[in-house]
């Protein structure tokens, strides 16, 4: 099964074949040779909560959290988040690109929290570095500022709203 993977700006092509007793996983980092890994199912075993993965002489306890295209892998007190697209998603993506969607820029909540204060309204032109709104999560206030000069198209939240991670906060007009 073919996937494409993006990890910290690096793009990989990935192929996974499941055998009766093994996994064959091939990785190709953009511009480099394919690398093939033959992993015995005995070396990649599910325990109740996590996977025990014996890989290149090392023992990893692994937990994978997958949501849509976003996969986070936890191991050895570390973690990485990557995007994984399967064939269906890749098809969707290529269709979207051709469709000429208006490239509005969107400010999303990076974590679940509460909107404390909003400084802008639709139609406002905001200079880079100026505050847009303040979010609060776990006692900390985080001021979110414009990363570039923008014009506000729509504000999707109001003061006092509790939002989930990834929720759209403000939509900006596409600069042409």
């Amino acid at each position, binding site marked *: 099964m073919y*996937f494409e993977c993006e990890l910290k700006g690096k793009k990989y092509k990935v192929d996974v074949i499941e055998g009766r007793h093994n996994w064959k996983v091939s*990785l190709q980092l953009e511009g480099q040779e394919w690398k093939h*890994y033959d992993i015995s199912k005995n070396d990649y075993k599910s325990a109740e909560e996590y996977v025990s*993965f014996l890989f290149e002489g090392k023992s990893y306890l692994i937990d*994978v*959290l997958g949501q849509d295209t976003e996969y986070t892998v*936890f191991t050895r007190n*570390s973690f990485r988040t990557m995007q994984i697209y399967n064939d269906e998603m890749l098809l969707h993506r290529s269709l979207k690109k051709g469709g000429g969607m208006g490239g509005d820029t969107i400010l999303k909540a990076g974590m679940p929290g509460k909107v404390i204060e909003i400084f802008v309204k639709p139609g406002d032109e905001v200079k880079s570095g100026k505050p847009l709104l303040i979010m609060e999560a776990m006692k900390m206030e985080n001021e979110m500022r414009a990363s570039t000069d923008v014009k506000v198209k729509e504000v999707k939240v109001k003061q006092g709203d509790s939002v989930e991670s990834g929720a759209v906060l403000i939509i900006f007009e596409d600069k042409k």
Partner: protein
Amino acid sequence: MITPPFKKILIANRGEIAIRITRGCRELGIATVAVFSEADRDSLHVFLADEAYHIGPAPSKESYLNYRKIIEVAKQAGADAIHPGYGFLSENPVFVRACREAGITFIGPTPENMEAMGDKLSAKALMRKANVPLVPGSDGAVETVEEAIEVVKKIGYPVIIKASAGGGGKGMRVVRAESELESAFRACRSEGQNYFANPAVYIERFINDPKHIEIQVFGDTHGNVVHLFERECSVQRRHQKIIEESPSPSVPNDVRLKLGEAAVRAAKSINYVGAGTIEFIFDNQTKEFFFMEMNTRLQVEHPITELVTGYDLVKEQIWVAKGNPLSFKQSDIRQKGHAIEARICAEDPVTYKPSPGRIRACRHPQGPFVRIDSYAYPGYEVPIYYDPMIGKVITWGETREEAINRMERALSEFVLTGIKSNIVLHKTILKHPKFLDGSYTTQFIEKNFEVLEPEIFKEIDDPVFIIAAAITAYQDRQSKDVRRLNVASNWRRIGRKIQLRT
């Protein structure tokens, strides 16, 4: 066996500290009452107490800070004392007086103690009288930006602006140039107003590259005050401690004695009762120390003092609150070995942004000389409303080196997935030469870890992560297809049934 000082104690707190206090009560044979907000029904402190009562909605203001409700619950449950833990109501004199009126013992200092130390400006005036060294700064509150500019002219940049009633990293700004002064001044005033209902701020010289050294003190109602030596808490991010150790590797023995004496003088000058901490700012070049503030409560990092002195501070708090004299004298107290604490926070280890959410796997470290004070468990959803700290790992060793190695070992055993945590940051800190030689200061993290892609993720090769994610993605896709197949076969089965009927 000694009769328990109280029959039943209500713990007006949540999370790991509520559990810590529950343990102290159990060991003394005292029944415990937990309270919880709507967001905390599944919090471990609720499961471990003898009784548990719902006290209101998720926001702290309407639950853990709602002292009338808490006292009402205490009365209904028949609790004869309340332990406030740290944070929330722990340093609120209004609450202490309300407890008194209700005939319930508050386990902690007197309201007068809190008032003396709660406002940083009046605290400094008192400390000056008690002959405790102070940092040069504004003589009292600074009202206007113009006034602030005048003060800074006298003491010179860099300066730190602090909300008079602030704490826990709130309402504090370092200013290094006049261009930053006005906005920092306004921000501190508004944070002071928003969080502590007091916009007063003061300004003082910012000691470049200091260490944070604090002394644990303990007083009783008979006028005795002792200290239990120092804790070094210089490893901080966003002005909040994340690693603490005792003893400090930077304090020479003669200075240690002076610190202890100054702290006892400070506490005695206000007739302090119970557990408290005098925080000092410490210049590692000159070994000078200056009074910063007093925390009139039990600290998060109290376990390292417990491990090096052998005294249970929570049980001593309860004992002293009953009116008993301290169970130890200054000459009894010794520091033995070395203890380190690492605060485990649900946060991104690079950006320090909170990362609440559902814990998937959670397995705490075990083994010799490792103590875990944590409220994390598999499946627990860390709520967004409260502090990101979910637990503490504390290790003891005969030497500092042994304590550090033990901490590294313990953290390697810690499995915590589903949410981001700072465990990997701790492991990196423990290997850092400046941590190892003890020369680190409060700017250690800011200076050494403020890079986008720090060393902390380099240990493991990318393929490990990608292979695991790819196999999972494969299984996810397969299971979707299987579902589709099942739907198809159901249609076929129904079709066959219909055929059979006819």
